[in-house]
């Protein structure tokens, strides 16, 4: 007894899809007892409609045809379960992101076949039970800046054990490098340092510095993370911070904390408020002279300290990896290589080291700096040379620095060359006014470059938008308010964690508005600038929100896992093909057959195709289910070529949704099938699907993944067989996908559809061959 509910989505679907016509076309389908069209299915009346219909028609299967399942599938599952229908007998058909938003003509016909596919799938579904497993409540926080610190402390207060992994020898991140924060001009290290100290003292927080994530295994609720810890060379518990080692150390290198403006020794204290509060040996530059060992009064130094690898087990992870400033190449015309051209972080260090000490800024030749030009949007909003996005905080921090500079050096002339002033935060507009009142010059123009003059100063020429005049200026110091980019290694970390990046290469959120902290991988959250440029205020909000997420996810130490995991039924000769196929180590061989670790298993199905006896299956995701769904999807495609798209749910399906949200169009010929993973596909299934009416098969899988390798093998296998049947092997195609390039997906689909159109529909004889 199947019920079908079609949503108009307030015009978002009904704008191009005639929902009543779809209803009329499907109401005669087998076992369909009820078909309803409604304005907003996800609203209270809509949900009541579903529950009422379940009761009055005695439904035991439900098909909802509305927006993407990625939006509300969980909610609909809960609703039908409440009304007595097994939550796994709900099929969620995507009529919006992958139909009404990407098509004009033909949208209704396609919608009809999508719904028919959903109905056909619904008929094959078994009622399933979720697994409740015990999981690890411990949390891994990656990144020890203000966001990571805040999350760690919040979680510790909630009774969670936290491992905080920080790449540098001390936590504190960028906020520790700042002088004052906008708009209140609070002292940055003063407000951060107590938090840092708390982290250092907290019994629930295990602090690993000089540490980086090397590899991740396991799954949501039970992650096993190998962390590489660089040798500190100094016993942090013994170190008195007397500084004698630093005094005798012969090696000097640029100081990273000071952004290269000053030097430090190879035996050094990262900064006064460092946590762990201890010196460090920079083994990359250490000459091993041993002078420090001798000088240390408590014998805390060990130059033979080795790199260690530890395993951190955690049920969830929080990525808080922050940012770097963009490299010099994007800023060439502003001569960043010159010492009198600095970036904003360097100005923070200049303020802290020089101005607060009562010194005056000087140029290389010893003369006082009397004028400074700020160049905003340096590298930002510049896809031609830098990054396309706005870095959010530069307007505010430039105003802040200008106010501070003038406070210390009232004679200073400060010019801020801006393109647009973005002062959106609370208190920011007053801050901006304060700057204008203090005589800081705002010039509405962006220089194309700066010209170094013979006397060491710089010439800056602009066309002032406000007056239309060309203005020439000579300044002593140029500050580049340069673009923020994800910190080095974010991309690699993301692939190790199995999370996706957005188009701008920051971590992609699950939903930009409604779920900005969750990543596309369950149990992994991302906070702070790791998910996009923002200030301290917003980073802290992210961190506190992530703590709340973690609590919801692992709070009581148990998790409900999806039953879409392999089940073993039938013969087993212990051949081990399945355990060999599993790259996540979720299958081990027992005495009678394979044993599954449901937490590590991500339902990819690689083991299914590997099993020579066909004894493994994923409930509700077998080849037969797929073919039934295909029959429904391919109905009504006699007139034109039909393409079946098998898209992996996590990335490729999301990419298709994103393309839909961006309203990018592509031909209606494709029917996208949502796969937990394309590794579930077998040659037989694909050939039969073609026999049933698919003229082309497009497989979209995550680029450079294990699943993509399997898909590639499958495609070449199928191609060979097609050739043998005298069918063009180009009818099957593998398209690797990554989320940042989702805008290309419509083009891939169009191109492949064109190719298939040129090859034409398969003949009836060929289809018979394929079905055998």
């Amino acid at each position: 007894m199947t019920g079908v509910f079609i949503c108009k989505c307030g015009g978002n679907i009904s704008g191009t899809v005639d929902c009543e016509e779809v209803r009329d076309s499907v109401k005669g389908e087998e076992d369909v007892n009820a078909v309803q069209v409604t304005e907003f299915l996800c609203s209270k009346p809509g949900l009541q409609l579903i529950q009422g219909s379940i009761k009055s028609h005695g439904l035991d299967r439900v098909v909802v045809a509305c927006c993407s399942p990625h939006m509300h599938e969980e909610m609909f599952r809960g609703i039908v379960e409440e009304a007595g229908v097994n939550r796994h007998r709900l099929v969620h058909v995507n009529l919006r992101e992958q139909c009404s938003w990407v098509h004009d003509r033909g949208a209704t016909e396609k919608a009809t076949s999508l719904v028919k596919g959903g109905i056909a799938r619904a008929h094959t579904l078994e009622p399933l039970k979720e697994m409740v497993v015990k999981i690890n409540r411990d949390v891994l926080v990656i990144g020890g800046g203000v966001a990571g610190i805040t999350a760690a402390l919040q979680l510790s207060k909630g009774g969670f054990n936290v491992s905080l992994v920080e790449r540098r020898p001390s936590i504190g991140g960028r906020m520790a490098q700042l002088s004052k924060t906008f708009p209140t001009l609070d002292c940055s290290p003063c407000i951060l340092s107590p938090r840092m100290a708390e982290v250092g003292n907290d019994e629930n927080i295990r602090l690993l510095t000089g540490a980086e994530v090397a590899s991740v295994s396991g799954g949501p609720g039970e992650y096993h993370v190998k962390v590489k810890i660089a040798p500190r060379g100094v016993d942090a518990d013994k170190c008195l911070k007397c500084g004698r080692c630093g005094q005798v150390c012969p090696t000097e290198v640029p100081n990273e904390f000071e952004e290269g403006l000053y030097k430090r020794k190879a035996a050094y204290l990262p900064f006064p408020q460092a946590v762990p509060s201890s010196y460090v040996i920079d083994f990359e530059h250490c000459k091993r002279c041993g002078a420090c060992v001798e000088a240390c009064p408590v014998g805390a130094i060990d130059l033979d300290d080795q790199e260690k690898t530890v395993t951190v087990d955690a049920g969830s992870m929080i990525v808080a990896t922050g940012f770097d400033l963009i490299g010099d190449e994007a800023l060439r015309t502003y001569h960043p290589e010159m010492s009198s051209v600095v970036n904003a972080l360097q100005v923070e260090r200049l303020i802290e080291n020089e101005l607060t000490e009562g010194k005056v800024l000087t140029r290389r030749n010893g003369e006082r700096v009397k004028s400074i030009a700020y160049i905003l949007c340096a590298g930002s909003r510049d896809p031609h040379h830098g990054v396309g996005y706005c870095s959010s905080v530069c307007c505010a921090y430039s105003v802040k620095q200008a106010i501070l500079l003038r406070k210390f050096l009232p004679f200073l002339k400060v010019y801020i060359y801006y393109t647009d002033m973005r002062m959106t935060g609370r208190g920011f507009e007053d801050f901006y006014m304060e700057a204008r009142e203090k005589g800081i010059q705002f010039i509405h123009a962006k220089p194309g470059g700066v010209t170094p003059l013979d006397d060491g100063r710089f010439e800056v020429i602009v066309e002032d938008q406000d007056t239309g005049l060309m203005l020439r200026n000579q300044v002593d110091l140029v500050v580049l308010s340069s673009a923020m980019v994800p910190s080095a290694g974010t991309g690699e970390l993301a692939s190790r964690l199995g999370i996706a990046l957005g188009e701008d290469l920051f971590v992609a959120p699950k939903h930009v508005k409604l779920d900005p902290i969750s990543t596309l991988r369950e149990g992994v959250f991302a906070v702070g600038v790791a998910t996009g440029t923002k200030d301290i205020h917003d980073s802290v909000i992210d961190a506190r929100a992530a703590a709340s997420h973690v609590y919801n996810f692992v709070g009581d130490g148990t998790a409900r896992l999806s039953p879409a995991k392999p089940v073993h039924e039938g013969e087993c000769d212990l051949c081990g093909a399945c355990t060999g196929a599993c790259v996540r180590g979720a299958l081990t061989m027992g005495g009678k057959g394979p044993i599954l670790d449901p937490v590590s298993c991500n339902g990819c199905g690689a083991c299914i195709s590997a099993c020579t006896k066909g004894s493994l299956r994923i409930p509700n995701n077998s080849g037969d289910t797929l073919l039934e769904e295909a029959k429904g999807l391919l109905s009504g495609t006699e007139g034109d070529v039909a393409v079946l798209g098998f898209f992996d749910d996590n990335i490729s399906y999301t990419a298709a949704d994103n393309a839909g949200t961006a309203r990018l169009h592509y031909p209606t010929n494709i029917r996208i099938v949502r796969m937990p993973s394309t590794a579930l596909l077998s040659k037989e299934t694909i050939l039969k699907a073609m026999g049933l009416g698919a003229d082309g098969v497009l497989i979209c899988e995550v680029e450079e993944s294990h699943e993509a390798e399997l898909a590639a093998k499958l495609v070449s296998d199928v191609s060979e067989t097609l050739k043998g049947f005298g069918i063009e092997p180009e009818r099957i195609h593998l398209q690797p996908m990554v989320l940042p390039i989702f805008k290309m997906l419509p083009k891939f689909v169009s191109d492949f559809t064109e190719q298939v159109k040129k090859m034409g529909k398969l003949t009836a004889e060929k289809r018979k061959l394929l079905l055998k």
Partner: protein
Amino acid sequence: MAPDSIVDLSEADTRFLRRLEAELGASDLSKCFQCGVCTASCPVREVEASFSPRRIMKLAKMGLKKQVYASDTIWLCSMCFMCLERCPQDVRPPEVMTVLRNMAAKEGVAPANLSKLLDIIKQNGRVYSIDDFTNEERGDRGLPAIETEPGFIKRILEVKG
């Protein structure tokens, strides 16, 4: 009555705008957010206050055809391409200028000297004619004579439409 110094936006010429946006050279014009890097880098603006590529981009984007064609400024770009290199949004102002010039020329608006130059090229197949005197001097310098008149140039320039 004093002339109205306010430009009414209903004056915006939508046909002009549509034709402009359809051209390859102006394909990224809408991305311009008026930062002014183009004009800041412009060698012509350094010596001539009336020429501002930024201003022309904005007027063109708004479809204010009359203002764009006023005072011949679109003909002042020396095509040095510095702005093209530096524009953060890859608007390619010189290419937009070329599109605007082509559109103006089609409507019969082009600087007189340029039209004269075109006539010369149409006549000679080159910017400067080559006659016996030229070839004599060339011979004196050991340079090969250039005998042929490139008729194909004339024929191309004479094609209608």
